[in-house]
């Protein structure tokens, strides 16, 4: 056997089964379209290592979108007798899933059917006769609950029994009729009263109750992120930095006689003879404090809340409610998912714009995300710095970014040829999130953040200090100081910080900390950092997803807009 393919309708838990089979951790959530990249891993089957491929969800083998075609061409890569197909099926909705199963069988794929989420089916009063289904389909049928791991061993044990089943070829009408008779024989529905979960499912898609719920959920999500972030900072990270790390560093500096290049690089400047984590700007002082003391707590808090909402299955319901507004800016409701992911980090946000159908939508969404959606590290720094002047200023930054995004969206929707397509979306049921899965996902995301951020931050602060020490920034400062000072009202030292924004936005705000800016100056500079040039990681992913021409277009927009917004804020709004 050369390969094992996981195939199934969207949002049946393919990625969870994939993680269970291969041990490769991938992000899974309770909404269709989580998997935008093909997952690959290995499974030890007896003595043989076999590659397992996790395909994006499809409803039918008749390709109707670009993503479907990708999945299908992969599936037909190898001759059918050299592969096995695990058809993952949602037990709570067997009827809809069987169309794909019948198509797979008719085309002669060797199939094992995996009835996933069997525990949820029982909760919902759906009882399936696995043996009967196996008899009717004439291929192995195994019921599993991938989230807890139930049935996975059995599934692995029976992969070798995957076999083609000869079936007469039908058209889709015929298949649905056949599915009707299969369902009658294998599925028993228990009649029961609506429980709280179903009442909430229902309420969240109705206009009035839905909007009330959405407002409540978004507000409390925001409050919780702040609460968790602040709690980690005051109770864990700040005590560790001040009571534990600082004394060690100070002991070290005490032995340091000559305060030359290395001192400047590692410790930075002493403020009133002491190390100040926010102002010293050394590789061992400010760099770890920015990442671990200011940003990491918020990264943990944000991803905890986002993962929770994802796994419950709330996000597609938000998409329904926001469809209307998002249509005006050339998108449809489902674009809320890339936007929310973008609040964590713009990179996964832009990658997930692949759930949108047209190139036009992807351009609009990616551009709006890189301009108007500040990532968590940047937001954490804004809270940390601007929050000191009062919540009013922080709210102001969000207000400016939000209005800007909306206006820009309206304009782009007007001037770009084409129209915004409509969505056709399956809304998943609410699911009680598994704590184990939630913890795994949080760990995976936080680890990803640390691996990507920490080296860049350390290297960045290192490079900045070297450049500052040898006064190599002076040329850059001299060129841009007139604009920065004349147009934005910022001191010339801010040139360096804005330039560093290309590297990482949190470090850029960090560079502003020692400058002693006024509330107005801080407001303008952090807003500019959000709008202006994307950071290098976002830049690369924009290039990959949009192509060079659109990247240039998108970037030009950002530069023009940030000049405009900076000037307007400086001369007209804030005085």
């Amino acid at each position, binding site marked *: 056997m050369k390969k094992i393919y996981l195939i199934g309708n969207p949002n049946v838990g393919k990625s969870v089964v994939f993680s269970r089979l291969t041990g490769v951790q991938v992000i899974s959530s309770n909404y269709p379209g989580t998997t935008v990249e093909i997952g690959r891993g290995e499974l030890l089957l007896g003595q043989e290592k076999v590659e397992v491929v996790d395909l994006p969800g*499809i409803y*039918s083998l008749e390709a109707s979108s670009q993503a479907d075609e990708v999945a299908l061409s992969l599936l037909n890569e190898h001759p059918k007798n050299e592969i096995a197909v695990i058809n993952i099926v949602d037990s709570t909705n067997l009827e809809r899933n069987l169309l794909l199963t019948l198509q797979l069988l008719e085309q002669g794929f060797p199939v094992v059917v995996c009835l996933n989420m069997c525990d949820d089916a029982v909760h919902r009063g759906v009882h399936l006769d696995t043996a009967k289904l196996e008899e009717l389909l004439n291929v192995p049928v195994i019921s599993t609950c991938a989230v807890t791991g139930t049935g996975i061993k059995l599934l692995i044990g029976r992969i070798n029994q995957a076999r083609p089943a000869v079936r007469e070829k039908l058209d889709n009408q015929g298949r649905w009729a056949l599915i009707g008779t299969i369902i009658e024989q294998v599925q028993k529905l228990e009649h029961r009263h609506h429980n709280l979960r179903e009442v909430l499912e*229902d309420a969240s*898609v109705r206009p009035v109750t839905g909007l009330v719920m959405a407002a409540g959920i978004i507000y409390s999500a925001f409050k919780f992120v702040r609460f968790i972030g602040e709690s980690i900072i005051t109770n864990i990270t700040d005590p560790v930095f001040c009571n534990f790390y600082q004394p060690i560093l100070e002991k070290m500096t005490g032995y340091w006689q000559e305060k030359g290049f290395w001192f400047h690089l590692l410790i930075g400047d002493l403020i009133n003879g002491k190390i100040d984590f926010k102002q010293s700007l050394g590789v061992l002082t400010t760099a770890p404090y920015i990442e671990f003391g200011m940003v990491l707590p918020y990264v943990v808090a944000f991803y905890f809340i986002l993962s929770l909402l994802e796994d419950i299955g709330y996000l597609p319901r938000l998409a329904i409610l926001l469809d209307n507004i998002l249509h005006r800016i050339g998108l449809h409701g489902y674009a809320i998912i890339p936007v929310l992911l973008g609040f964590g980090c713009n990179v996964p946000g832009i990658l997930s714009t692949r759930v949108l159908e047209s190139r036009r939508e992807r351009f609009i969404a990616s551009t709006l995300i890189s301009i108007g959606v500040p990532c968590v590290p940047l937001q954490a720094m804004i809270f940390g710095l601007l929050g000191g002047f009062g919540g009013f200023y922080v709210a102001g930054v969000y207000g400016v970014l939000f209005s800007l995004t909306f206006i820009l969206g309206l304009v782009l929707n007007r001037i770009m040829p084409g129209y915004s397509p409509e*969505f*056709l979306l399956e809304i998943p049921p609410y699911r009680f999130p598994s704590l184990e899965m939630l913890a795994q996902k949080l760990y995976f995301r936080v680890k990803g953040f640390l691996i990507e951020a920490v080296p860049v931050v350390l290297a960045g602060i290192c490079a900045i200090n070297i450049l500052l020490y040898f006064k190599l920034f002076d040329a850059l400062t001299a060129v841009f100081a007139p604009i920065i000072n004349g147009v934005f009202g910022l001191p010339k030292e801010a040139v360096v910080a804005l330039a560093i924004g290309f590297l990482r936005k949190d470090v850029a705000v960090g560079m502003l900390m020692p400058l002693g800016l006024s509330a107005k100056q801080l407001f303008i500079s952090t807003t500019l950092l959000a709008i202006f040039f994307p950071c290098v990681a976002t830049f690369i992913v924009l290039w990959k997803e949009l192509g060079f021409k659109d990247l240039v277009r998108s970037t030009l927009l950002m530069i023009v807009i940030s000049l405009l917004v900076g000037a307007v804020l400086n001369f007209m709004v804030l005085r």
Partner: protein
Amino acid sequence: MKKVSLVQLKENHKAEVVEILGGGNLQDKFMGMGLFKGKEVTKLSHIGLKGPVVIKVGRSILALGHSIALKVMVEVEE
């Protein structure tokens, strides 16, 4: 009996799909999701001002953008 689109169908009402207008691509997509001529659907809600329509088909809940919902015709009593 009268033919109306999903947009005009009243909330919480059941009806049978009698026709799906629009191209083959849309028909195929609906077919894959289990929505086709002869199927019974229940309308759950309609977010006003040209917002999407939410329906129940079998055990699935589908959200259809406004102009797509206009293409799904159902039969209701007058």
